[in-house]
């Protein structure tokens, strides 16, 4: 075990991983993820795809809420914008995957910019309610702009086309999503080593001091909304490619609440937190279902029992985390890591 921190250059100081072991382990993890489709069932690949998409969107939400301190309830709206843009570009215009996804993200970023404007004068809960407007405006637009979105009946999305091949299967789209996930997470992690990221954090910590120090608060707040909405829009686009058909019923307000739960449980202001939170919330219904199925196999009457627990468990977990570990699962992970790093000393 290493003891002590010796940094001998600026680049060492700024490094994401301070020793070789994490880099090796990360490489192994990526290799494992890349090899997974060979032996995972289609169902678990579907779950993994949904987890990856959730991680991307949770990272986006964490950028604006965790790192910049601007509470946003518009996650479902930006997911919908990304998804429907994809349906239009891939379906009607027939563009390939690697063109559609960034474009969908860009359109969502533009929409995010527009709905970020209230952040000039609003903070905290007031801003949250203003972003709620984003949700309802987008929901209404999507439900009633029949010619573009198919209205209440939804719109189907063709299989992702990359390199001339149609990749509609969960198994194939897994790789596309994984590549995007790794790239976007890398970008997000690096964002907070740059001037822009540090400006975001300064705004969260004390926006008036940041303004006094020379950070153009409004410009960076808008940028935070734009970057966050880009991530969420990309997640929405991948969601559309994976689900193959989307409708307004895919994006209720509970989706926005679920994502807020993800970043709270995972850890606000931490990329690792977005990952943990997304995995936890996406797996929660699966775990409850496994328990439910096991019971229902023996007593069919127990079929509905666990599903009702999902909402209770979700709320309970959020409350317990806020009480005992407000910095989320990421903080708990750091405590565990530090315990072993400093053992037998306690600090």
């Amino acid at each position, binding site marked *: 075990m290493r003891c002590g921190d010796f940094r001998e250059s600026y680049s060492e100081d700024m490094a994401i991983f301070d020793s070789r072991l994490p880099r090796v382990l990360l490489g192994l993890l990526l290799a494992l993820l890349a090899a997974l489709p060979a032996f995972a069932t289609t169902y678990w690949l579907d*779950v993994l795809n949904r987890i990856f998409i959730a991680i991307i969107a949770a990272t986006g939400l964490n950028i604006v809420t965790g790192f910049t301190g601007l509470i946003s309830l518009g996650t479902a709206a930006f997911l919908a914008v990304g998804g429907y843009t994809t349906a239009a570009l891939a379906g009607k215009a027939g563009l390939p995957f690697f063109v559609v996804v960034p474009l969908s993200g860009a359109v969502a970023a533009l929409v995010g910019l527009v709905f970020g404007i209230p952040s000039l004068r609003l903070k905290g809960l007031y801003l949250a309610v203003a972003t709620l407007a984003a949700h309802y405006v987008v929901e209404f637009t999507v439900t009633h702009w029949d010619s573009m979105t198919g209205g209440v*009946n*939804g719109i189907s999305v063709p299989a992702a086309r990359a390199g001339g091949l149609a990749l509609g299967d969960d198994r194939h789209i897994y790789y596309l999503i994984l590549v995007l996930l790794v790239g976007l997470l890398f970008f997000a992690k690096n964002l907070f080593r740059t001037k822009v990221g540090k400006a975001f954090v300064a705004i969260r910590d004390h926006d008036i001091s940041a303004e006094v120090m020379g950070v153009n608060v409004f410009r960076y707040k808008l940028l935070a909304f734009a970057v966050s909405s880009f991530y969420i829009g990309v997640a929405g686009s991948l969601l559309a490619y994976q689900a193959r058909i989307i409708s307004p019923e895919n994006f209720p307000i509970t989706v926005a609440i679920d994502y807020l739960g993800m970043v709270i449980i995972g850890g606000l202001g931490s990329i690792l937190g977005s990952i943990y939170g997304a995995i936890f919330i996406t797996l929660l219904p699966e775990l409850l*279902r496994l328990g439910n199925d096991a019971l229902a196999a*023996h007593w069919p009457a127990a*079929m509905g029992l666990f599903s*009702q627990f999902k909402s209770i468990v979700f709320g309970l977990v959020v409350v317990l985390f806020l009480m005992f570990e407000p910095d989320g699962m990421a903080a708990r992970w750091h405590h565990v890591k530090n315990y072993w790093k400093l053992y037998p000393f306690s600090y």
Partner: protein
Amino acid sequence: MAVTGKLLGASLAVAVAALLPSHPRAQDIKIGGIFDLTGVTADVGKPFQQGVIDAVAFVNENGGVNGKKIALVGVDYGYKIDQARAAYKRLVNDEKVVLIQGWGTGDTEALKEFVTQDKIPYFSGSFAAPLSDPAKFPYNFFVAPTYSDQLRAWLAWVKKDWGSKPGTAKVAFMFGDNAYGRAPIAAGKAYAKEIGVDVVDEEVLPPNFQDATSQLLTMKQKAVDYAYINVTTSGVRLVLGDAKKLGLGIKFGSNPYGFSEILVAVAGPLAEGVTGVMPDVPYGDPVPAMKNVEAMHQRFRPSEKGDTMYVRGFSYVLVWSEALKRADKAGQLNGPGIKAAAETLRDFSTGGLTQPVSYTSTDHRPTTTTAIYQIKGGKLVKVAEYTLPRKPDWLGL
């Protein structure tokens, strides 16, 4: 001490049960079930699911499918489309079911690509007209007249009820802004124009609404005489309560998921005079198959009251288990085989629980006959029955 001992014993039993795998025998026929037990339509979804489960037990006890037992793998998806999709993928890819008993309009239409690709016969609780067009939805079936045909039948009743009063009847539609809510509206408007009934207002009822006063006041302003409510039972109850508060004399009608014994139970005297379309007979109606339905209900749920949703679930199983039997006899117990077998049903009788069922390869409308019931004295009384023409241009609309 004794309490903790019991608690420990109980949790141990649960843990053991959870770890024990379930092993259906090799010749069991696996059927998937996607139900809503906890979502927005749970008030009607739960009795439907109960009807399906009990009917499967009934079929298994009475010879099964040519001796083979049906193993129902049920999932609660809470009316969330992505949960339905995940459940579908698991049922088809991992559990390898040959048929799915589905539920809601939105998710059934969302699963269309996969259902057609995987060739899995899908019996939905949704009667949306597009699902009855095999050209668009080749593997989808349901056991009832389409929502559109049912609305047409109700409008025909409105015309008859208006009788020879001066002017034309003024009708309003109240519905949720989703696929299920909007399903029959366009067809209803077109048919109303055809028979000479005025559709003067359309009101949207938001999801999980608790108050319909503003919608009802608009309808009062437009002097509406009849209103068709296209949500589920709890929504109908809310509208009736608000209408009473406002002192409106509007005659309300409901779609097949808002009208049942459950409405009578929750709305009490408010429901007097309300009409509704009923593709299945009320629970306890003296038809030949009702004794089987009642026997199963008494056995498994003696403390609960039966209703027409339970009958509906039961009737679905009778229909698709017949398709399974025919497919098995032909040696084609797979997706396309079951679809073909279902399409051989001609005036198949469910023992009076529903109208006789017929499917063809070009038309999945099982019947075009709709019964209109009215609540009189707390009971569901049949007041009319309309058989609409099986028009080819109404297929899918």
